[in-house]
């Protein structure tokens, strides 16, 4: 597996400009001869499809939702970072770069992160021009806030719906191109296989989820922007349809999968309420600016709160453990996501958790309301408090909120080089689906930035470069008549038929829940060698059971949510095993990956830069053959590796 990162020569700050100059261009009148497939219509996919079409390429875009406007980028709340330094508070391209590399616990590629930081300003300009109604000051200039513990105010936002507004901006640009006929949009279609011809990605096989029809689509290049794999945990903040299938199918066709064990657990989600729950809801991290996180010091008091015998407000100050303030006095309740999540888990493991399940901690606004008055708190967080009350039925102005960590984002993904090209030539990967920019932990308000950076400002150049290199004589040469398409289609059909014909007794949802349980327990916030080895065995057994005892009702000829879920769960089970292998291989703790064997005396993550400063890239070898590990060394020429400390 060739892991040449293709990082351009030269100083960090000149790499992207010199690379843009050195890239091959395609003559504007020749661009219409090429076609590009974009899978996914979120921030990365939507903006890439629109931008490539603006340049003149023929684009086909696919999404599983009934409209490209519904991609899960829409659910991001907080904001988008950019190194504009509009607040004159010391921000710069270099600082955003530095913060991102450090926040990622030194497991991201320097050159990619620098480029991300460099184009971040252009993203804000582009979105404002697109009509994104960013928050403004009275003077008409853009407003900023500090977010996720950053020491500068670099986050742009549109109320609590930044993701929605950015996505609708990309969707409107995409819609314009659809209206012009430059993008052909396929709603309610899911990609079920990648087609390779002579080693290059030349098309995909999709299923029309409304009619059940399988169709072949050929192109000169393929872009996957299919999001993250958080739903491997069953319960996550992801949308119900988010899945790993497109990425995993590409992995099976030869694309390296990098760092799958890097998953982010977000500390401020609403706790689980029962076994019928389908998803977890995130409460914006901004709540931690004023809320104080605590549990009772005494497990017995916690037990009484769980049973409803004790009112949390009646717990005396001395009997409360504000554990983040105690353990991390300088950052307190604003400690980074991975650290806060683990601390909450520890408190619950000690039997001090609240909520009916014992898996919850308090986020208490009592002191903030006393200090600033209820009106001020309402102005700041009114919509979030309403949302909390809508879901839980509790009034957070009177009773402390309860929160618990939940899976929120996945940093790992398909390996890509500096051009965002995977190990399969001609297949590019953007957004959360790639592994590129966040290392082992993502900072708040950086996901939107990366999706739009990839889609608006990176892929339109690098895909063009690839097409230019292929030469115009080859444009559109591969058609769906090529035998590789027939082979891939037959492969998809056989699998669908198999899923429908097992005739067992257990539903796809039930398997999904069992999968999620294994992954959450053994490959969640704390991982151990023993646990991971057990999980791999359990997942192999689960896979066997799945393929012998699955029951999928209905048929393949139309909308069939059971069949859709079955196909996704099948891939998630295999992918979960890969995650565990990756976590087992990585004998260190870094970012979202915490191995209990590798911690300091006071329980902090212990990185091993000497042996693990690499991206772990897995090559698929066959269904029952162990995948092969490849390593891309991470070389830090600009940033000095240091221990993250938030004490």
């Amino acid at each position, binding site marked *: 597996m060739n892991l040449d990162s293709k990082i351009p020569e030269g100083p960090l700050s000149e790499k992207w400009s010199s690379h843009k100059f050195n890239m091959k261009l395609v003559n504007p009148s020749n661009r219409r001869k090429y076609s590009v497939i974009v899978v996914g219509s979120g921030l990365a996919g939507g903006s890439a499809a629109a931008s490539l079409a603006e340049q003149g390429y023929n684009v086909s875009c696919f999404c599983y939702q009934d409209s490209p406007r519904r991609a899960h980028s829409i659910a991001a709340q907080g904001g988008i970072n950019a190194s504009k330094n509009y607040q004159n508070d010391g921000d710069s391209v270099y600082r955003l770069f530095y913060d991102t590399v450090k926040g990622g616990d030194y497991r991201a590629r320097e050159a990619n992160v620098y480029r991300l930081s460099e184009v971040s300003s252009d993203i804000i300009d582009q979105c404002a021009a697109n009509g994104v109604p960013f928050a403004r000051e009275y003077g008409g200039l853009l407003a900023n806030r500090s977010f996720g513990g950053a020491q500068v105010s670099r986050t742009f936002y549109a109320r609590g719906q930044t993701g929605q507004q950015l996505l609708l901006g990309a969707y*409107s640009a995409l819609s314009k191109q659809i209206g012009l006929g430059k993008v052909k949009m396929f709603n309610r279609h899911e990609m079920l296989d990648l087609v390779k011809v002579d080693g290059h990605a030349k098309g995909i096989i999709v299923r029309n989820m409304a009619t059940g029809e399988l169709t072949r689509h050929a192109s000169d290049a393929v872009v996957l922007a299919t999001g993250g794999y958080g739903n491997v945990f069953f319960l996550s903040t992801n949308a119900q349809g988010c899945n790993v299938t497109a990425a995993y199918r590409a992995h099976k066709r030869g694309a390296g999968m990098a760092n799958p064990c890097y998953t982010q657990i977000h500390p401020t989600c609403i706790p689980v309420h029962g076994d019928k729950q389908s998803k977890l809801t995130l409460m914006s991290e901004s709540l931690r600016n004023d809320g104080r996180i605590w549990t009772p010091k005494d497990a017995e008091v916690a037990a009484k709160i769980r049973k409803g015998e004790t009112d949390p407000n009646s717990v005396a100050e001395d009997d409360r453990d504000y554990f983040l303030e105690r353990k991390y006095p300088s950052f307190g309740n604003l400690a980074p996501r991975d650290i806060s999540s683990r601390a909450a888990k520890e408190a619950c493991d000690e039997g001090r958790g609240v909520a009916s399940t014992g898996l919850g901690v308090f986020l208490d606004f009592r002191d903030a309301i006393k200090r600033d008055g209820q009106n001020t708190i309402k102005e700041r967080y009114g919509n979030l408090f309403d949302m909390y009350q809508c879901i839980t039925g509790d009034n957070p102005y009177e009773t402390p909120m309860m929160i618990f960590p939940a899976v929120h984002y996945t940093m790992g993904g398909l390996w890509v080089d500096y051009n965002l090209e995977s190990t399969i030539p001609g297949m590019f990967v953007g957004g959360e689906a790639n592994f590129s920019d966040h290392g082992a932990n993502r900072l708040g308000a950086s996901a939107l930035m990366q999706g739009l950076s990839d889609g608006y400002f990176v892929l339109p150049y690098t895909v063009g470069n690839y097409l230019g290199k292929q030469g115009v004589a080859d444009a559109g040469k591969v058609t769906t008549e090529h035998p590789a398409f027939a082979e891939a289609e037959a492969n998809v059909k056989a699998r669908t038929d198999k899923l429908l014909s097992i005739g067992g007794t257990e539903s796809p949802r039930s398997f999904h829940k069992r999968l999620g349980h294994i992954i959450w327990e053994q490959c969640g916030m704390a991982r151990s060698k023993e646990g991971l080895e057990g999980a791999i065995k359990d997942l192999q057994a689960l896979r066997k059971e799945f393929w012998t005892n699955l029951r999928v009702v209905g048929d393949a000829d139309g909308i069939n949510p059971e069949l859709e879920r079955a196909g996704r769960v099948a891939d998630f089970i295999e992918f979960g095993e890969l995650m565990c292998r990756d976590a087992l291989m990585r004998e260190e703790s870094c970012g979202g990956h915490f191995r209990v064997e590798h911690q300091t005396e006071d329980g902090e993550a212990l990185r091993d830069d000497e042996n693990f400063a690499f991206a772990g890239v897995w090559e698929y070898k066959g269904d029952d053959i162990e995948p092969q590990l490849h390593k891309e060394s991470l070389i830090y020429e600009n940033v000095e590796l240091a221990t993250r400390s938030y004490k």
Partner: protein
Amino acid sequence: MEKTMDLTLKVWRQKSANSTGTFETYGVKDVSEGSSFLEMLDTLSEDLVEKGKEPVAFDHDCREGICGSCSMTINGIPHGPEKATTACQLHMRHFHDGQTITIEPWRAKPFPVIKDLVVDRSPFDRIIQSGGFITSRAGSAVDANAIPISKATADYAMDAAACIGCGACVAACPNASAMLFTGAKVSHMNSLPQGKAEKDRRTLAMVATMDGEGFGGCTNVGECEAACPKSISLDMIAHLNRDYATAQIKNFFKPVA
């Protein structure tokens, strides 16, 4: 412990776009009051699968009230009885033990039923494709602070842009009008300085597409605003009418597109 309830559901079942649908009655037991409405439907689905029957198909995705996928009329009201709440954010504590709940798809001619509770809302996409954008090629933008926008304007644009495109307004309207949806997008873009250049063209094109898709006209009933999970105001329809009248007059003297 959370309270649970037993319910009777009357659910619209329809095999495909071309078949005739009918209400089927099902019972669901032990629904916890903390569950969302869609989780209650998940429970029904699992029960049906258990019996080897096909579960109820319905659109849903984010389950946090922002993607606009969920689209069902609950006891006669799009998204159900709670104000400013999508079906996915509607919780079962608003229902009571022993209640009968009727669930049906959006009922509007431009949104044909594809299966059970799933309808085809692609006319909304086509309205946007005809003009619901501000043309700015990637790479062509000026500095975001080069064009100041007053806070009031930005807030107004945001109020309009909060639309999630779910289609409840159409389902609630006796005329199946899409004026609130179209008005929200027109108001959002026409109010911003960046959107002025294409204002007249946009307004005429979007209204023409809206009419062409078979949506009815607005007769100021106001059901759309009441059903809207994002509380989009009727003012957006007034804004659309105003901009449409201006654009038509201008177009009469000198074509705007």
